[in-house]
């Protein structure tokens, strides 16, 4: 700063026009106003992006590939692990990547019970060792209108269900996620009725497309993507594919599922991807593949109609949405 000439600051001096001072003062006030308003608005509205997961290798070779792999470009790891819906961690897409580090996925036990002849409580590593892991490159469509191509690594749910031998009374499969507010900060709120519960009809659960995933792209499943064990049902909206599964129960009755309870007019039990049935707030006819700017048409049953449409023959999918 250049020192001001002393005679200008003399008290009692006549008040000459001081253009330079006036200008500097106005410039400072202008800058201050602009930064205060701009900064305030930015603080109020900015939602910064999150970092990707590190990704440990999951060694198990050889890995057979599934019969239904899509050849579409796989969503880059950074995006698949930084843009997640996982309300147990928070409502923001970046909350899971930011907060999932606190989730302890070992030791982890899974209880398989209900209408089965051989109920079992099993450690995740043991469970994983029962089946050969397969790569399954599936499309994933979120009910919000975005989609990804995910290279899951896992085993068919059918293999697990056959092992515990469902009884004749088993009609549905109910999945329950971990309930632990110490590890899931979002569970301190009552936004959803915790724990998260999802369900499938037994024939849907036994379908060869239905996968229990423990990995992603050859690596251990990142916490934000549902580690250590999640369901993957590629022809249904993403919220059906429950994460952090601790219990699988075969039931006689259709289970009450979390989102269907939270907003029954918006989220049904079936939640099959269906471009002909709009969400109350938006059309489901198109979707944005993450990484692309333009929308693309949504396919019935997310492109798996050939494999699964017969499961719903004769059903009114506007009613059973």
């Amino acid at each position: 700063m250049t020192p001001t000439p002393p005679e200008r600051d003399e008290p009692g001096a006549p008040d000459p026009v001081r253009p330079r001072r006036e200008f500097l003062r106005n410039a400072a006030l202008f800058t201050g106003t602009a930064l205060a308003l701009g900064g305030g608005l930015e603080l109020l509205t900015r939602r910064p992006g999150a970092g990707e997961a590190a990704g440990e290798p999951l060694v198990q070779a050889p890995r057979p590939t599934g019969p239904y792999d899509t050849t579409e470009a796989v969503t880059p790891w950074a995006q698949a692990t930084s843009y997640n819906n996982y309300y147990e961690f928070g409502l923001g897409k970046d909350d899971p990547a930011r907060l999932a580090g606190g989730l302890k996925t070992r030791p982890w036990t899974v209880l398989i019970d209900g209408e089965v002849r051989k109920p079992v409580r099993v450690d995740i590593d043991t469970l994983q060792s029962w089946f050969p892991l397969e790569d399954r490159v599936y499309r994933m469509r979120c009910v919000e209108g975005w989609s990804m191509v995910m290279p899951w690594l896992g085993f068919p749910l059918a293999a697990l269900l056959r092992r515990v031998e469902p009884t004749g009374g088993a009609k549905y499969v109910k999945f329950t996620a971990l309930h632990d507010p110490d590890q899931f900060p979002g569970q301190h709120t009552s936004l959803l009725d915790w724990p998260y519960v999802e369900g499938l009809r037994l024939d849907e659960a036994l379908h060869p497309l239905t996968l229990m995933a423990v990995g992603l792209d050859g690596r251990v499943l990142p916490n934000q993507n549902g580690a250590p064990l999640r369901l993957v049902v590629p022809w249904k909206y993403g919220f059906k594919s429950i994460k952090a599964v601790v219990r699988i129960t075969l039931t006689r009755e259709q289970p009450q599922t979390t989102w269907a309870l939270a907003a029954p007019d918006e989220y049904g039990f079936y939640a099959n991807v269906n471009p002909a049935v709009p969400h109350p707030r938006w059309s489901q006819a198109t979707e944005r593949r993450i990484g692309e700017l333009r929308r693309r048409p949504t396919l019935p049953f997310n492109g798996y109609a050939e494999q699964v449409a017969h499961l719903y023959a004769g059903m009114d999918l506007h009613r059973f949405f």
Partner: protein
Amino acid sequence: MSRAASSSRSAPRRASPLPWLEPGVVVGGLLPAAILALDAVTGALGANPVQRATLQTGLLALALLLLSLACTPLRLLTGWTWPARIRKALGLLAFGYAALHFLIYLLDHGFSPGLLVEDVLERPFVTAGFAALVLLLPLALTSTRDSVRRMGFPAWQRLHRLVYLAAGLGALHYWWGVKKDHTAPLLAALILAGLLGLRLLRRGRRRP
């Protein structure tokens, strides 16, 4: 308002036009748009940049609209005159962000008029947002001093009362757009209700 200015403070200079205020507000209000553009170019908008830009411009529009509606109550409560000087700038900035928000939505849906009509007619969430923008349009077009003169102040003021309806629809649009946590839309609605309440209180006192 000149009465309030002369009585409340001993002004060092006779006329205090605060020449820095309005430009500061305009540049400050445009700053988030510049940062958004920069983020878009550098890929800092995350995995779903279109959605992020839609959300951010929508929030900015509502925040600026609420700020513009806060000017009059602030002036009445404090006797300051400067809020009146920035009300128009804040309102125009709000309209600018609302228009950008709509433009991104249109772009996102491939500029399809069919889908726009379907969305506006069939989904109350979209109807509310679209109506808010439509209501703001004549206000933005008549924001010049010249318009006030041409229309006459009473008619101009009547027209500009549409801003209350637009803000209400904007808050409703925000509420409907949120899937689960309604804290932020509720806060916006409460602020809006408070600002309108202050005006009604004032009117009631003026006309007993």
